[in-house]
């Protein structure tokens, strides 16, 4: 029983990092109706920027704020420079651009910072809580995740900008007709997604250590979590991320052993999606004729 509880707790801890990555994916999805496969590498790159700032002597929170701001700007720049020219291209062409971006960021990070792992400081230092199975940092990550979730929720629910952003992603032509600056909405969406990604990266790095491949696996789980919860629902994405963490742990510990735990977790997720094709908490959208 104790072991079970510990598996659940450590699953939640890992799930916490999936959840925050899932939030970044939800953000970009709401703004562009695409899932940005380069999101993880962008977060990784932001984290290296933070590391560089801290290495240069900046205090943690200074580097944190600096990184979030810089990532926001970089996100906008990427949209304007890299994504805009393929704005009218077929979806898969855009996906290929994402893949291009992914390999570029990964490769450049490896080139600049090498592939040796680096430790990254936590804003929530100190020992463990809850009987030693959750570190203070992991708890902090959950707090941050919930904070970001709340902000996103308020943003999309109550601000005209949030609504305009969703509208621009869905129907750019009609959005223009009501006066929405669609181009800026996309850029802003990228900026916000990059900023959230930066937060995610800085929360993840203390756990998995900083290296250019740090986000590869996590992005996948974040993706799975976001879809499991419903990609149009930030709260669902967080729940989905946490669920993936726990599910993976439990299937590893009790179902099949560690060798196939990922496989089993994925089969379960896909199974759930087959039954609920828009995710657990996603809205069922009807396209009628």
């Amino acid at each position, binding site marked *: 029983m104790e072991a079970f509880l510990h598996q659940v707790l450590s699953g939640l801890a890992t799930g916490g990092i999936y959840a925050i990555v899932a939030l970044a994916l939800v953000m970009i999805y709401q703004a562009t109706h695409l899932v940005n496969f380069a999101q993880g590498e962008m977060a990784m790159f932001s984290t290296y920027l933070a590391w560089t700032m801290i290495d240069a002597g900046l205090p943690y929170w200074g580097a944190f704020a600096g990184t979030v701001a810089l990532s926001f700007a970089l996100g906008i720049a990427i949209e304007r420079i890299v994504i805009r020219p393929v704005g009218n291209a077929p979806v898969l062409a855009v996906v290929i651009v994402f893949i291009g971006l992914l390999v570029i960021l990964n490769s450049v990070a490896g080139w600049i910072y090498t592939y040796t792992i680096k430790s990254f400081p936590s804003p929530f230092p100190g020992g463990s809580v809850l009987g*030693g199975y959750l570190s203070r940092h992991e708890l902090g990550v959950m707090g941050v995740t919930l904070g970001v979730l709340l902000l996103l929720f308020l943003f999309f629910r109550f601000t005209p900008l949030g609504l305009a952003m969703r509208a621009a992603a869905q129907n750019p032509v009609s959005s223009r007709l009501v006066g929405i600056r669609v181009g800026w909405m996309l850029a802003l969406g990228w900026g916000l997604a990059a900023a959230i990604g930066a937060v995610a990266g800085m929360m993840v790095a203390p756990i998995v250590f900083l290296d250019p*491949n740090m986000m590869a696996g996590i992005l996948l789980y974040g993706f799975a979590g976001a879809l499991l919860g419903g990609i149009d629902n930030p709260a669902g994405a967080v729940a989905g991320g946490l669920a993936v963490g726990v599910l993976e742990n439990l299937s590893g510990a009790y179902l099949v052993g*560690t060798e196939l735990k990922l496989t089993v977790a994925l089969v379960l997720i896909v199974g759930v999606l087959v039954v609920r094709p828009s995710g657990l908490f996603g809205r069922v959208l009807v396209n009628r004729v």
Partner: protein
Amino acid sequence: AAQKKYSPGASDSEIKVGNINPYSGPASAYGAIGKAIGAYFAKINDEGGINGRKITYITLDDGYSPPKAVEQTRRLVEQDQVLLVFQSLGTPSNTAIQKYLNGRKVPQLFVATGATKWGDPKGHPWTMGWQPNYQTEARIYARYLLENKPDAKVALLYQNDDYGKDYLKGFKDGLGAKASMIVAEASYEVTDPTIDSQMVTLKASGADTFFNITTPKFAAQAIRKAHDIDWKPLHFLNNVSNSVGSVLTPAGLDKAVGLVSSYYLKDPTDPQWADDPGYKDWLAWMKKYNPDGNLTDTFNVFGYSAAQTLVQVLKQCGDDLTRENVMKQAASLKGLSQPMLLPGVKINTGPDDFYPIEQMQLMRFNGKTWELFGTPIGG
């Protein structure tokens, strides 16, 4: 003087050496080795080359993918016409190209993998390993355990690939009849974000000994996680990941106290070598030839030392730079010691012995440096 004899890739002025390395993909951390080798050859060339011949080093990326390794190797052999393929990295990649190279009678020399299958002169006379193989190392820990903690309950964490499984096999072989000491095994995939869940499971097994068969990132995670969940087993760490600078420091030196590992190279981050002449030469070389390289990264010692061995072999070849002679010379290294090998560790090969380095020394981490104990031992 003996008559000059050349195979493709060698001439009066040049020796072409090919290499494949994962400069991209999940194993790209190893790319440092390929670069270090190139940097060492640059130094040799600056110093006049080998018997007056410059080394042309052609290193290609295979992204740790066997099909790509085959393609790149064929390019090295058929297009670039290298004399030999040196330090090709990774068990899967080397397995993929072994048949081709042996069929073509091209030396596959000093492969950069610790799998056990590379020392098979009968079956694959053109393939030779270099580093102590994983099974040897694992057997050393097993022997230590049988001698010092015969009633241990052991938990294992290994990477689910040939590297992990080789260690596993060596360890079990080493324990022999007492393999039942192993009470828990867990594996992970390189794509896993963390191994936290595995660590929790292993702790729950009640084990008091932990054999940590992981690559650097996961090793650091495991060391930290064990500390965080207050699990204090006798902790064996495979030498793949025992770098003070790139594993123990990120994990937290205080959390690594008491770790047991083994080595055959000098750890560049270990203060005990600060005044060692071999280390100082290495450092000078790093500064001059590999300035982008990471001074804490043992891969830079590994590549440096492996390249030194090849240089020795090529020197021994003299003017007979045929592929046959390269293999012959590679198989006649006797008691060779190198500046960055641990004192006492010697390189020995023979027509029936394709395992150049077979000794390692156990060591324990004291919070600052590794303390060697005992003498270099073979498996």
